[in-house]
């Protein structure tokens, strides 16, 4: 399966990539990083001139298509870890195959690349666990159930909206909770499960992001959560930095779902040392 990393997992979310790719290896998924890729383009679904913003994701899709052909990979999957990359690449793909006008403009502009045939299937890490590996297989490998650990999931918005690319029901997503239950954790209902962390407003109006991080964290703490689980590096960044701003330190740690899986199946080598220690300390207090 081809793999599109994205900039964030190579820079600030290294622990996510390490744990996620480690787990996929454990479950027999052969992951090949694209030999050439650029920033996904952080496609903003509501921007007016969508053709211009589609150039970067289309280039990545074309390179994935070329490499799949070269390596004779016929499943055409393109794995993403970052929710933003997933959203951008998948939206661009759909826009290209559904909107003739956009496709025409993209073809004319990207005449230095091969023609995109529209075959690449952008797939998020959680979907692979759910649809390709199957949660049952994960259950079989469980050695450290997260017994009694109370967690809140945070989907963020990029995996759920717009509806056409949603990996689950946007209003009542369950895909993460189902897996967390299998790992032995207890999930808590709270109002922010599918809320946006306010993403890149952090660069322009950070005070709004700190406020949102404060709201999410306090709500989760009130309900007795010991940690927040996400798969989005941007949510993780904003929540971590927001807590530092509001409380002076991180009161409620944010973990990637992949890190919890790696711990639960006893594969500590896929966790960063400091993250493993942090998780063990939390579990001691349960």
């Amino acid at each position, binding site marked *: 399966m081809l793999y599109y990393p994205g900039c964030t997992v190579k*820079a600030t979310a290294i622990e996510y990539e390490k744990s996620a790719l480690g787990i996929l290896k454990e479950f027999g998924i052969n992951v090949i990083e694209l030999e050439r890729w650029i920033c996904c383009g952080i496609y903003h679904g509501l921007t007016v001139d969508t053709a211009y913003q589609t150039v970067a994701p289309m*280039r990545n899709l074309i390179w994935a298509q070329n490499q799949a052909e070269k390596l004779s990979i016929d499943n055409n999957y393109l794995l993403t870890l970052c929710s933003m990359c997933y959203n951008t690449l998948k939206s661009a793909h759909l826009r290209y195959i559904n909107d003739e006008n956009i496709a025409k403009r993209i073809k004319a502009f990207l005449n230095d690349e091969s023609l995109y045939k529209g075959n690449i299937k952008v797939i998020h890490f959680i979907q692979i666990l759910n649809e390709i590996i199957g949660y049952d297989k994960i259950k079989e490998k469980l050695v450290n159930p997260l017994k009694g650990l109370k967690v809140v999931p945070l989907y963020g918005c990029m995996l759920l909206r717009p509806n056409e690319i949603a990996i689950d029901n946007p209003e009542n997503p369950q895909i993460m909770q189902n897996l967390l239950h299998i790992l032995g954790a207890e999930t808590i209902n709270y109002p922010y499960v599918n809320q946006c962390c306010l993403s890149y407003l952090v660069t322009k109006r950070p005070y709004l992001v700190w406020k949102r991080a404060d709201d999410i964290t306090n709500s989760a703490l009130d309900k007795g959560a010991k940690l927040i689980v996400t798969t989005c590096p941007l949510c993780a960044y904003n929540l971590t930095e927001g807590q530092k701003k509001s409380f002076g330190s991180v009161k409620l740690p944010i973990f990637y779902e992949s890190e919890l899986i790696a711990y639960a199946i006893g594969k500590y080598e896929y966790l960063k040392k400091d993250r493993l220690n942090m998780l063990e300390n939390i579990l001691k207090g349960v």
Partner: protein
Amino acid sequence: MPGTVETIKDTKLVEGKAVEGVLGAGKKLVTIYVMGKWYQVPAGLTITKALEYLGYRLVRGVGCRAGFCGACTTLWVKKNDYKLYSGLACQTMVEDGMYLVQIPFVPAEKRIYNIEELEPNGSVVLALYPEVTRCIGCNACTKVCPQEIQVMDTIQEIIRGNIAKAARMAFDCISCGSCSLRCPAEIKHFYVFQLVRRLYGKYIAPKAKHLEKRVKEIEERKYDGALDRLIRAGPDKWRELAEKAQKDEEVET
């Protein structure tokens, strides 16, 4: 529009028989347009030489004449071709129908930093040049680079924090600035690349041990005696030594 060989006679620079004398028998002329003005010049000249052949006195837009300094960036289009081409005037032959202009200088703001106070990572580069993250992957920079650098991919390596790879990829950059003129995100690639190369050189690349050793020797005044002897040797000896050195022969100190 003029375009036939007969019209050469009308031009001041290559009028009448002088043309034959300059070009020699059998030499071809090509038509070029310099800043919109029509000229005919001998085929096989570089753009720099063609401009001088036409009587232009080059003050800006010329430098080492060997493809290293990046001063003679030139943009052109060709007949029946929508593409904008770029190259170094000293390294590019004139072509028939070339419509060209030289770019004497590319204005760009250079951020001020003290290399001693920086850490070698991507965030440092993005803090100084935040516009780097505006890259939308159009690849206009790569298409125009006369040094055939993968400019867009290099910028992308910086965004993901791999400045060591970026520094190696941008090694051949001569700061001509063509990429920055074309960039819709208004990235100043040549300054960004200069910064990553500096960070790479100072903090990441292995240190040259022989250089450190030699600097230490110089500081310990090991070569003072040899230098004094050389100064006293006089012009004839200097000439002899210089000729030997040019031939890469051993020179005794």
